[in-house]
């Protein structure tokens, strides 16, 4: 078991502190919330629990259909974010791959820009 963690080649050693941090940060959130339970008042009645709507009784359910635009933005984000993530390893090894990498990335960005111009022309980036 000890060798499992001590080997420097084995990457997960680096992630152990991250895991500990994750548990501590999550624990901090839960503990502050649960600790407050014992000291705070808990007096609720119907009017207090109504969702806020400028003081008037709420009309209809809040979870109504919402504009398509949010879906389109989310889809475009997924596409472009994958491109962005693809550029990170390229940028890291750029000094080793030289001209080949530069031309490849020019081609890649050209394709990206064609899609971008298409989305722009189709009005996917408009918000009026």
């Amino acid at each position: 078991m000890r060798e499992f963690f001590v080997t420097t080649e084995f990457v997960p050693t680096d992630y152990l502190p991250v895991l500990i941090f994750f548990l501590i940060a999550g624990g901090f959130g839960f503990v502050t919330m649960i600790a407050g339970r014992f000291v705070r008042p808990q007096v609720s009645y119907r009017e207090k629990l109504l969702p806020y709507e400028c003081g008037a009784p709420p009309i209809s359910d809040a979870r109504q259909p919402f504009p398509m635009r949010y879906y389109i933005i989310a889809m475009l984000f997924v596409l472009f974010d994958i491109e962005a993530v693809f550029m990170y390893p390229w940028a890291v090894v750029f000094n080793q791959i030289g001209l080949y990498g530069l031309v490849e990335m020019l081609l890649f960005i050209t394709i990206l820009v064609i899609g971008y111009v298409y989305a722009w022309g189709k009005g996917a980036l408009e918000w009026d």
Partner: protein
Amino acid sequence: MEIGSMVAVTLVQIAVVMGVVLLTVAYMTYAERKVLSFMQDRLGPMEVGPWGLLQPIADGLKLFFKEDIIPSGANKIIFAVAPIICLVPALIGFAVIPYNGSFTLFGLEGGGVISDLNVGLLYIFAVAGMGAYGVILGGWASNSKYAFLGGLRSAAQIISYELAMGFSIVGVLLLSGSLSLVTVTEAQAGTWFGFIPQWNIFLQPVAFVAYVIAAVAETNRLPFDMPEAESELVAGFFTEYSGMRFSLFFLAEYGNMILVSCLASILFLGGYKAPLPILEFIPGFVWLALKTWALLFFFIWIRGTYPRVRFDQLMKFGWKVLIPVTLANLLVTALGVYIYNN
């Protein structure tokens, strides 16, 4: 290093980093009120302690003792955990922030960073992306129209500006050739002509400006605070939150602000490196703190200066200006690096 001492060192580091971050959050709220007040010719908090210095503690205690209201019709479980989903990513991003060079304390060796991941930057972006879930889940679970609209807007805004942020950073990666934040910092050591520090801001000014704008939008700060635009959406996605849950959202927002400022000072301003060799006797973490606080002051400053933009202007600016500019900057940088190397 042995597993036991490694865990011990990690625990101490996490305790110190989290303590500093939470303390900075507390006094950031104080500084924000004070600075804004002085900009508006007021005094700001003055009652609690000398010059109101204990105000953040009083605010924290007050929120701790406040009733926790879960609105009827809310999805209780999601409503309850959304603040934690928001807070955890804002805190664990600090795991890869190098706050000092290597040092030895009480015979234990510390790397000046909780964990020097070789994919540090990607890790931060992956983790920061999770924060958007907390926002949109909190907005949806509240079953309130204001919260719902605020959550949607916030998510759209966060993802739009994350792209520009991601693209603006590639230029820095081209210069330093690594995703590890320690390597990025070390690559900025030294000076040109003996007095200009070799910081990336001088080689990547466009990327720096784009990054700062995207960072302000990412953290939902004025002038891009659409999700919480008080005059139209009450408080945005946390309209229905009260007491401790509200304060966790608040902690997450300010934690994110500190995280993006830390990242900006590491990527563009040399992180824990002193600007001049003469000043190297001052420890690294002081430099990182000074640079981060300067950026945080800048956040408050623009809040005090600019009016809020409209949502359509915000989206248009992100997609039609920032993304093309950062892409062009990336290509120019790649060409420059190639020509310089040959």
